[in-house]
């Protein structure tokens, strides 16, 4: 699995398409709690984790459960970890579980890339 992280609007998805020869049709874009784990690439994992927090589900457990399905995928998650601690409890929880998930994914990744202003910084 390849993990791509980076701040909002940094060009993560474009990088994934160019680096791993992915087409738009290969990418599942999260908008809620549902993930198609069979997709070669899953984008906006942060939207999935936010939906999980709001419905009381554990996103890390869901990823662990489906591990064989994403073992060779490209996973994209926004870095949401550098701001002030959010005032809202659900956003604090969102930051927490997304951070735990990213650390778990990093451990299981062959490659981790941080995208910064459209440029790759190889972290692993």
């Amino acid at each position, binding site marked *: 699995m390849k993990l791509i992280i980076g701040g*909002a609007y*940094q060009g993560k998805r474009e990088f994934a398409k160019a680096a791993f020869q992915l087409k738009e049709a290969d990418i599942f874009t999260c908008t809620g709690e549902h993930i198609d784990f069979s997709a070669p690439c899953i984008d906006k994992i942060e939207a999935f984790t936010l939906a999980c927090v709001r419905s009381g589900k554990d996103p890390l457990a869901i990823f662990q459960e489906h591990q064989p399905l994403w073992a060779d995928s490209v996973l994209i998650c926004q870095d949401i970890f*550098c*701001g002030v601690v959010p005032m809202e409890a659900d956003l*604090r929880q*969102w*930051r927490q579980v997304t951070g735990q998930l990213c650390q778990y994914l990093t451990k299981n990744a062959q490659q981790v890339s941080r995208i910064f*202003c459209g440029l790759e910084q190889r972290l692993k």
Partner: protein
Amino acid sequence: MIVFITGGAKNGKSSFAQRLAVELSRGGNRYYIATMIPVDEEDRERIRRHIADRAGLGFQTVECGRDILTCLSQVDKSGSFLLDSATALLMNELFLPPDYSLNPEAGEKCARELVEFAQSVENIVVVSDYIYSDAAIYDEVTETYRRALAFIDQQLAAVSDVVLELSAGNIIVHKGDFQP
């Protein structure tokens, strides 16, 4: 040479960018493109602090808060330029007088003009701000601003010889050969 510098707030971007622009000039003309249009006393205080900060470094200040290409006619293009910052320029272009309503074309306009400006001069250091990694959900106007600045950053990074991120005064090289 085009150098693009970004990073979080209060990491020393401006002072580092000043030193770098002086170094690049090798004694030639030095221009500080001042992009901030002050609206209150806090802004004016910040401008005074920045002027004091660069006193003695030999910069000629060129005030240009919008339509950045227009100031090219008043300068020696073979000089060294410091543009601080893309963030302030975008803010001015995004909210245009007289009614200061949101101009949706501002991001593309700024990116296009900044790239042309950077490619027209001998040396330039452009400073931006990295505002993309917090766990907040913003209103649409703020998201428009973030999206536009990120677009400018990427366009500038693509044409830059050197891209640097400053973190607590430390330099992270993202592109180019740069020895601090």
